[in-house]
């Protein structure tokens, strides 16, 4: 991950330098907007489609099933250990596409920037997006920028939409889980949410908790390389693993039974959660997926995930059952059971 970049050295920023901060005119469609595109966005995302600078990107896509997804990114602080809103904006939409079994191809990027945001900060966000897109092998082919008055935005909001193609033979969806399927998580849970929260709340631990932000389509390819018996895929972002599994349980009309003892959680994430009275199963991830796989393919998929750089801590954490349709349950560490329902709103740090 590239850390601080030297703003002065990476583009030809002369016109931008006259404006150390974003002003309303940067979103006005006039000369300032054009300068922003020319000096910031184009150099970062350079590709044939975006360079046409038309009202739309014109793309040639292969025949087959197209996946199309959009997501908006709002995070405070904009930069946190292990990532920034820039990586999230690229990886988030790439992951949404990948969870449909698609191979992501193109993204759009829409920026809503608050007046007064330091230009260097925006440049840094865009640079993070460039690196993330390059790493994911995806092109940002169209974009837009609007500027809102100071106090009307939280620095920078980003929306990305993306398309990808689903190869034949892949049939995944949240309504396809079947009793007997294995539930496999690709790694430790709660890293992203606690990384952001620990910065936001000024908590200090012996080690800095890093966000797990990553594009998961490579891991998805690794899974499909060993089996097409994958019934559902989800990246458990907001609401955490609990929400993803509850959604699949509801849409597939099946029960989900977990074993808490084998849920992978990093010790520092667990400690931070204990401190705030949070349950990691509800905490956001940005680089993990949960796969619902037929039991006959479970071992092969698990092995394939573990061989991949983003799946080293993958584990089978439970199974799909016919009983208790729509419900997620877990066997606790001491051998009791509990139901893990959808969370109502945000988890609230408790009092003592």
């Amino acid at each position, binding site marked *: 991950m590239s850390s601080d970049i030297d703003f002065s050295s990476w583009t030809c920023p002369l016109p931008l330098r006259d404006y150390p901060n974003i002003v309303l005119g940067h979103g006005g469609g006039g000369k300032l907007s054009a300068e922003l595109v020319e000096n910031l966005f184009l150099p970062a995302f350079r590709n044939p489609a975006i360079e046409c600078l038309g009202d739309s990107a014109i793309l040639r896509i292969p025949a087959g099933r197209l996946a199309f997804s959009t997501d908006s990114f709002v995070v405070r602080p904009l930069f946190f250990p292990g990532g920034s809103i820039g990586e999230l904006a690229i990886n988030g939409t790439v992951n949404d596409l990948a969870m449909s079994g698609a191979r992501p191809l193109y993204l759009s990027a829409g920026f809503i920037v608050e007046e007064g945001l330091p230009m260097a900060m925006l440049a840094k966000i865009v640079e993070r997006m460039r690196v993330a897109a390059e790493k994911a092998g995806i092109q940002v082919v169209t974009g837009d920028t609007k500027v809102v008055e100071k106090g009307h935005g939280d620095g920078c909001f980003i929306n990305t939409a993306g398309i990808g193609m689903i190869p034949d033979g892949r049939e995944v969806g949240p309504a396809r889980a079947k009793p007997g399927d294995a539930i496999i998580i690709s790694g430790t849970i709660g890293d992203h949410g606690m990384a952001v929260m620990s910065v936001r709340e000024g908590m200090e631990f012996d080690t800095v908790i890093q966000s797990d932000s990553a594009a998961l389509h490579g891991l998805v390819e690794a899974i499909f390389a060993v089996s097409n018996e994958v019934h559902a895929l989800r990246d458990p972002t907001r609401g955490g693993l609990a929400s993803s599994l509850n959604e699949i349980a509801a849409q597939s009309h099946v029960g989900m039974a977990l074993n808490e003892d084998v849920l992978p959680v990093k*010790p520092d994430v667990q400690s931070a959660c204990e401190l705030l009275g949070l349950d990691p199963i509800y905490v956001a991830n940005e680089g993990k997926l949960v796969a619902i796989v037929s039991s006959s393919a479970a071992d092969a998929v698990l092995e394939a995930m573990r061989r991949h750089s983003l799946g080293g801590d993958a584990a089978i954490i439970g199974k799909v059952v016919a009983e208790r349709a729509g*419900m997620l349950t877990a*066997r606790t*560490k*001491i*051998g009791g*059971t509990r139901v893990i329902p959808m969370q109502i709103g945000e988890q609230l740090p408790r009092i003592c």
Partner: protein
Amino acid sequence: MKYLNEFRDGETAQKLFREIDRITTRPWAMMEVCGGQTHSIIRNGVDQLLPKGIELIHGPGCPVCVTPLEMIDKALAIAAKPGVIFCSFGDMLRVPGSHKDLFRVRSEGGDVRIVYSPLDALKIARENPDRQVVFFGIGFETTAPANAMAVSLAAKEKLENFSVLISHVLVPPAMEAIMTSPLNRVKAFLAAGHVCSVMGYWEYPPLAERFRVPIVITGFEPLDVLEGIRRAVIQLETGKHEVENAYGRVVSFEGNKVAQQMLKQVFEVTDRGWRGIGVIPKSGWQLNEEYRYYDAEYRFEVTGIETKESPLCRSGEVLQGAIKPTECSAFGTVCTPRSPLGATMVSSEGACAAYYNYGRFVKVEEIATACPVT
């Protein structure tokens, strides 16, 4: 964390369950006082694995739950005032007042902020000298020292724009009220470990003696709770009524003397209303004469508060251990964490929320069959 995992070990838990089963010859009802213990019991399913005769009655030790409605309404009124920055622990924000909650006040333009310590609120006061900063200081003896510290620092710094809305409640008077209640079924107490870490347990021997009730100072992890239960059962089975410390790694007899000194300096004992229970004499703290300047109730004129509790909510009976949450007809139907009728459904430590969040709207026997193969 290694330290914590030791107190969640499945094998040791099974040994303790077997031991409790072995020594129990007849039914016993005991109360875990603290909401944190209730949360741990329900989350881990401790109650499902105990011998049938051992009943855990969930006590009133959830500070969010027992804060009186009038105080919540006062908080809402103060938070809505222009110029006020109202700071609170997170789980107070969703507690319903008579008409709304703090989240609603925030959405209507009130400056309501979640903080993790009253000292954070103090910092906000220093940084915003032109605003009135109010901290909602609720809780048991556990949270009181930090509030006392904040007030004492504010006084030292002559910080005039800081105040606290205090609604502190005390555990021993509540235990006494439970034992003298005609509804009482409690035969032993698992006392609140964290409260005792501050206060020690020198207040308990007279209670144990007077009511002939065993009191075991108990922690919060599953193995802590099981050890507390085991010791309580031994006492009950042998006809003893002593005060025992099963949370020795945290609690001493004297408690934290520095904290107690700080509390003495800033607070005085007062009668206090408990939501769902009523006024318990000498069961709370308020700022004493010397520090009254920092009391938000005195600083802000808040009048015309008419409280209105839901007629359906039976949280009072739940808090006194008279009924289990599932025995309330509103539980899980009109009353859920999404639209709570009473505070016991809001805080994660409230018995109703613990039952709901860990799925006790389904029969225990039904979910107990959920056993994943991995």
